[in-house]
């Protein structure tokens, strides 16, 4: 009976839609990967029960229905409607300034003294600023030597910031040694651009 098929299809679609809405006008969770501002690759892996979804495209999303999860593509409008308040409460991103040092010392280069001044302008933009001073070295010398030198440089900058009125409780100094060079080099290479301290304002 070929003529009854369209009718049955309509009924089936209606029943499906009704069930989907009864169960599904409510869904218990949503995950959306947002586009990166600088465009580099990112991903979130979502495990729901036995299923795993990898969200690795802008607006790739999953939502959790009572019967299981579903992958789909969200958009800026849905994200704003569902997460507008959460996103509006996002703190300002950390901003980083880099200061350079004379070889083997904890004293700034001349250019870096000027950059140091701009940090204070940035601090005034944050409602409750806290600062991290991160010391780095080049790859000349051992790890323990460079860890100490990096921390000494960071401490010197911390002291300078405190002298200019930043509350000590709001500044942490850390040393990264030679682990995180700005310019990758072989071990033992003297590289002025790696002898630096970052001031992170956040």
């Amino acid at each position: 009976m070929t003529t009854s098929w369209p009718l049955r299809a309509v009924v089936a679609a209606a029943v499906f839609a009704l069930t989907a809405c009864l169960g599904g006008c409510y869904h218990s969770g949503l995950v959306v990967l947002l586009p990166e501002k600088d465009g580099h690759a990112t991903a979130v892996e979502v495990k729901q029960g036995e299923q795993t979804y990898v969200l690795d495209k802008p607006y790739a999303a999953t939502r959790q229905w009572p019967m299981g999860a579903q992958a789909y593509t969200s958009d800026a409008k849905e994200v704003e409607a569902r997460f507008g308040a959460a996103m509006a409460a996002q703190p300002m991103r950390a901003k980083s300034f880099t200061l350079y040092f004379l070889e083997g010392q904890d004293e700034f280069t001349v250019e870096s003294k000027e950059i140091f001044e701009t940090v204070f302008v940035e601090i005034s933009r944050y409602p409750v600023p806290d600062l991290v001073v991160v010391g780095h070295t080049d790859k000349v010398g051992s790890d323990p030597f460079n860890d100490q030198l990096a921390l000494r440089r960071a401490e010197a900058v911390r002291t300078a910031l405190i002298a200019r009125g930043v509350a000590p409780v709001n500044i942490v100094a850390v040393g990264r040694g030679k682990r995180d060079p700005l310019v990758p080099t072989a071990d033992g290479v003297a590289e002025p651009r790696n002898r630096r301290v970052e001031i992170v304002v956040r």
Partner: protein
Amino acid sequence: MQTPNRRSFRVALVALCSALALAAHAADIGQVKVAKGTVTIERGGQSLPAITGARLQSGDVLKTGADGSVGLTMSDNSLLSAGPNSVLSLDRYDFDATTSQGQFDATLQKGSLAVISGRIAKQSPDSMKVRTPSSILGIRGTEFVVSANDD
């Protein structure tokens, strides 16, 4: 001229202040940078107001009211912000600033959350997890939103 009494009081005060600063400092994992409406920090059975500038500890639970939202900056530079009617637990947070190694586990029990991951997730992609009652999110980076048990 200072009486010995006043001087010993001052010494004690300075000692107390540095002890408090040290204690606060040692356990700090992040800070409340934005707080709107009703927001509380549940810590060790107590409910504290989550004011802007409040320091966070591992194990803290943040709760927002129907008019509330809150924004946190963690010590690894990750940013977490929750919308109204949310419950967010900072279950576990370890971060070594020298090596960048760490572990960050948070749970969104209900509500909405926006995240920009930081140095912990960047150093090792398996080291940051966000859970909801129905899902586990492994964070390779960087920016995403998640909701749970919406009202």
